[in-house]
């Protein structure tokens, strides 16, 4: 039965040949042309060490007498080795499940090398000794292979069939790869009695079409028609990571399928989801069950709240109590265990701590709901694809008695109310209000995040600049400061790290807020640095350190968006006493820079005759910059960073 499918699909693939790949290839396994072996460079990327000449995956879901309903694919990948460094891709491994219920199996794995020798193709098939099966771990088997006789110019083809019974869980297909792709073809055949959604990702054009074909005849099912989707991608560039990207993988060219229903005679199962049904599922899941259960800390909560009138004070004290009883094990989880188990272990994942904290807040009379989050590092949430598995974790939404909305990750010790780690700052989080009831909430603008530096300095005749720096970090800026430095609990280490951050000689340093549950922290230190002296001139750098880095903007062209960490206002005020006997010879120019982003910078230098005051303010509300805007954003960023090279020049008064 499979043959029938594949004959049809090959035919259909040919129908999509409107997009001709750069290197013509035979679209048949083990049918390599002399031309494929002979060519030496890939014109679209002449520096490529290797090329995917043709990757082909024919997937189908159907009934098999051996496996029952199953997912089946026939896969082949033809690689061209173009440079010595490309030879390493001629080895690889396939990982399959050892779970007997899933019946996963790889069949007919062949690894063949084709070399052109004296104008003829020499075919070397890897024997069993070059295909090694081993247990990777308890659940997974590894099938490692190494192609034989590989040299620059070789074509290597890997082909196999794979079966498993996870037919409701269709794997994504990635057209793009870490090396360029000449041609990638994918077809999937799904019976009409299965409903599904599909979603394409990536920046490159993928041609696609849909056809009807006949599938396996199954007793009791009248309609054996399948819907076959066919995709064809040509000349895809090698995928390369870029700086300041939370989730590079989400930009790979790929196709996803999600089964929404199975409709067989006498057996209809609806997997389709609306966000309302996801909300109901959350309510019926341990997320709400544990949160809504009677708090194990009810007595402690009562005692904590006694005599307190301020809601924030109550909430802080409750959270402090929960955290002292249950330590976060630094695992980010979505589904909590029951309260008793977690409290007994004194430890739990983020879901455990949040569920217990939620229950404790509720015991104090607060309205609490779980807010499900897809972390930035896992890619943007697709709001058109409702599913519970889209989320990685949840935080809490607490409403105070005066109606104030507070969002908190109860697990993270560096966080606070409305102060979340940057990985959680997403535009759409799923706030579950009740069965079939939810709201989308924006977590990226919960607070105004500020970093404020005040520096008072003086410079001696010999060129020693000394003074005091005071820093204050508020909200996510405080989270960031604490998260960066709190692990350096030893004073020596802290000094060492701080001197890397602020490269001057530091003394009398104090920090506050590291161990407090709060929204702010401070830094105070004395410093000493040397400025340039020459004859009758003193040249002073008003910036003790570079407040921003332009390291992420070194590339001239950008393929993917730039992800910014969090919106922040940074102020730096530097006041320098004019040294006795000197006059200002040169001050940096005032400037204001703006960009198409919601971001501005102002730099002002003032003098009143006895002091010079430098004021730098950078207000960045942007969370993302698109590739089309990159050139302009890069110029803006460079202009902003250029002020860190400015100097104040004093000259001895005559």
């Amino acid at each position: 039965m499979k043959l029938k499918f594949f004959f049809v699909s090959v035919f259909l693939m040919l129908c999509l040949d409107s997009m001709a790949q750069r290197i013509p290839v035979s679209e048949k396994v083990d049918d390599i042309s002399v031309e494929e072996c002979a060519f030496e460079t890939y014109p679209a990327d002449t520096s490529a060490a290797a090329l995917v000449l043709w990757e082909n995956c024919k997937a189908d879901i159907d009934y098999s007498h051996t496996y029952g309903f199953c997912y089946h694919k026939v896969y082949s990948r033809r690689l061209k080795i173009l440079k010595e460094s490309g030879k390493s891709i001629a080895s690889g491994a396939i990982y399959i499940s050892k779970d007997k219920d899933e019946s996963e199996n790889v069949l007919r794995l062949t690894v063949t090398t084709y070399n052109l020798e004296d104008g003829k193709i020499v075919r070397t098939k890897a024997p069993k000794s070059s295909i090694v099966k081993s247990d990777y771990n308890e659940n997974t088997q590894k099938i490692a292979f190494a192609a034989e006789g590989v040299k620059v110019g070789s074509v290597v083809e890997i082909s196999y069939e794979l079966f498993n019974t996870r037919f409701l869980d269709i794997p994504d297909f990635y057209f793009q790869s870490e090396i360029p792709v000449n041609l990638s073809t994918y077809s999937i055949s799904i019976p009409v009695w299965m409903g599904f959604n599909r979603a394409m990702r990536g920046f490159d054009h993928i041609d696609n079409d849909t056809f009807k074909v006949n599938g396996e005849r199954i007793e009791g099912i009248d309609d054996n028609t399948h819907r076959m989707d066919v995709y064809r991608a040509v000349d895809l560039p090698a995928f390369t990571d870029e700086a300041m990207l939370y989730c590079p993988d989400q930009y790979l060219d790929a196709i996803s399928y999600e089964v929404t229903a199975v409709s067989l005679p006498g057996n209809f199962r609806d997997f389709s989801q609306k966000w309302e049904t996801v909300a109901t599922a959350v309510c019926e899941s341990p997320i709400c069950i544990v949160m809504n259960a009677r708090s194990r800390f009810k007595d402690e909560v009562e005692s904590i709240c006694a005599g307190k009138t301020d809601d924030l004070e109550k909430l802080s004290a409750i959270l402090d109590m929960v955290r002292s009883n249950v330590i976060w094990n630094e695992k980010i989880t979505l589904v909590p265990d029951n309260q008793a188990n977690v409290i007994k272990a004194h430890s739990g994942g983020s879901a455990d701590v949040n569920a217990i904290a939620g229950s404790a807040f509720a015991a104090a009379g607060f309205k609490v709901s779980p807010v499900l989050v897809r972390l930035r590092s896992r890619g943007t949430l697709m709001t058109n694809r409702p599913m519970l598995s889209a989320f990685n974790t949840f935080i809490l939404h607490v409403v105070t008695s005066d109606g104030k909305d507070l969002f908190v990750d109860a697990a993270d010790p560096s966080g606070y109310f409305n102060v979340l780690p940057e990985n959680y700052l997403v535009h759409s989080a799923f706030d579950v209000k009740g069965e079939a009831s939810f709201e989308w909430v924006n977590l990226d603008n919960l607070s105004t995040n500020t970093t404020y530096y005040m520096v008072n300095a003086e410079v001696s005749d010999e060129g020693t600049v000394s003074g005091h720096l005071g820093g204050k970090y508020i909200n996510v800026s405080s989270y960031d400061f604490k998260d960066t430095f709190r692990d350096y609990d030893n004073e020596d280490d802290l000094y060492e790290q701080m001197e890397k951050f602020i490269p001057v000689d530091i003394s009398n340093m104090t920090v506050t807020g590291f161990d407090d549950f709060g929204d702010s922290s401070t830094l105070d230190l004395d410093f000493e640095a040397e400025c340039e002296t020459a004859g009758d001139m003193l040249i002073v750098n008003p910036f003790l350190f570079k407040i921003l880095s332009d390291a992420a903007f070194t590339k001239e062209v950008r393929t993917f968006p730039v992800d910014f960490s969090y919106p922040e206002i940074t102020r730096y005020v530097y006041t320098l006493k004019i040294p006795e006997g000197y006059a200002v010879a040169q001050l940096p120019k005032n400037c204001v820079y703006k960009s198409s982003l919601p971001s501005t910078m102002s730099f002002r230098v003032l003098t009143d005759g006895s002091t010079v005051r430098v004021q730098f303010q950078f207000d960045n509300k942007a969370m993302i910059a698109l590739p089309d805007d990159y050139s302009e954003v890069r110029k803006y960023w460079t202009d902003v960073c250029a002020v860190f090279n400015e100097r104040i020049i004093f000259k001895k008064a005559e």
Partner: protein
Amino acid sequence: MMRHFLPTVLSLLLLPCAICWADVDAEVLYNRCEVIVNSPTDMKCHVSRKIQVNNASGKYIGLFEEYTDSFSSISSFSGAVESNGKVVKKIKKSDIYTENCSEGLADDTYVNIYTPEATLFPYTVEYEYTIEYRKGIISFPVYAPVVAFDTPVREGLYHISVPRDMEIQYKAWTEPEVKETDKTKEYFWTLTDFQPIKKEHNMPLLSTLLPVVKARPSNFRYLGTQGSQSDWNSVGKWLEEIMPQEEPMPEDLKAKVHDLTDGCSSDLEKVKALYKYLKENTRYVSIQFGLGGFSPTSPSVVHKKGYGDCKALSYFMKSLLAEAGIGSEYFTLNTDWSLTESSPGVGTMNHAMLMVPLQEDTLWVECTNPHLPLGYRHEDVAGRKVLIVNSDGGSLVGVPAYPDTLTLRMTECKVDFQQDGSAKVQVHETYRLSEAEPFISFRELKNEDAVSILSKHYAVQTDDKKIISISDNFQDYTGTPGYIPEVSIDWSFLSRKYGSLNADRILLPVVIENSHFSSQKSSRVHDVVFRTPYQEKNRLVLTVPDGYSVEFLPSPVSVDTEFASYALEYAVSGNTITITESLRANRCILPASEYDSYRSFVKSCNKAVQAKIVLKKNE
């Protein structure tokens, strides 16, 4: 008076210890290891370890991690996590996660891991387990009770029990207590209150600071073979014995060798031709299984498959050379340290290469990475002692090191500065020896990736980057001593914000490469060890734009110390400013008590590189 004085002295002695331990993230309460050798092929290793984790930073110190392979397995395991005197988690063998730890084709090594869940601090985690070894004993498990920096060990015990007639050899921080019974000989190493080791940059080798026992039987049996490791010659003999059986070279390969070499006019030409053949026809694939971890697969297999590991590829090359009438020696080495006369051992090495004596020079050929220039001794082998293996057994030989002054990075930048603050920069860079290594396959990169690598060295923004030319001598080895791989790259870029313009002045950087030196603020505990000599020379030639003249040129800087020297000099000629920067790091050990001199050196360098040249508009 004396009566009062004594307790005071004692309490003062204990005080630093108490303070130190109160601050640590975790402490090893005990770490005991008992090795019972039943026969030359079977042993059991019983380990009991208890760690107190004081805070979140110490959590990783409490994890369980052991490696096993097809000759060893964890036969029993139990553990517990205790907090506030209560057991909060009993750890069972089924809690251990086991995973194959290789991405190679065949490797039977598995890592076994358990990570305790955090509970209320402090908590203790305790493990008791037995690993059984079978089919041969080449060495006993290494005993290293100090599991992390800043982590004290209260009590340590390593006990090896061997049959009375079994000789062992060891390298340990102290001599063991030895007891004999009728049937056994027992060795005991004990440790009490070992103080935490602080992690610092450029610190001495940990092996010189930590208590470690590496022990092995002098005579051993392994997978049906037997050998001795009482000296390097014996180690070599065993390695030679397990080499693949000599078999006739396949005819097609034989013909190929002769085809490639018969017309060559010298041995060097033959070596070059066969090295090229090796590069073009083989690749590295990791295979570590059984005896295959020590002996190469046969040359005919490598020829057939076109791949092999370091041993197989070296041995294959040896056979190619032999067919061409060129003698060579297979040798093994450790890429992390030099082999020493006093510590012979079969399991001491982790790599294999080939030595080829030529008429005027000796080649040390890296067959696993045949891209490396012939005639170059890479960093993992130069200056090291390695083990030559041949029919005479093994012998340690020293691979010549390069003079310290030869490793070099040199740049010359010509800066055409414009009045709008931008500059066109033409760069000529030269790299030698290990500095040249990253550029061996540089020509394969596309312009975008190549210039991206080069521009990472620069502190100014770089646009319109273009490679102009690349030249190297990677194929120029002539068979005489003194060959130094070198590459030169010419490229250019535009910097839109090179200088700061302000009214009638322009501020220009004196150094455009990223060059910030760092040092630690805290007092130094360990001596500072400068292991890698290094030399950098940068020259920046700057044209003063029309209408401007130099108002301020920073003073020259010259700092010369035993460990390093740094100089920044300026010369003005007409409208050209030439800035010459040189840095040299020497191989030396600076006592901890003199760390201030290093810090002061760093400060001087940092101040020097931050200086600015001031140009002023002519009136």
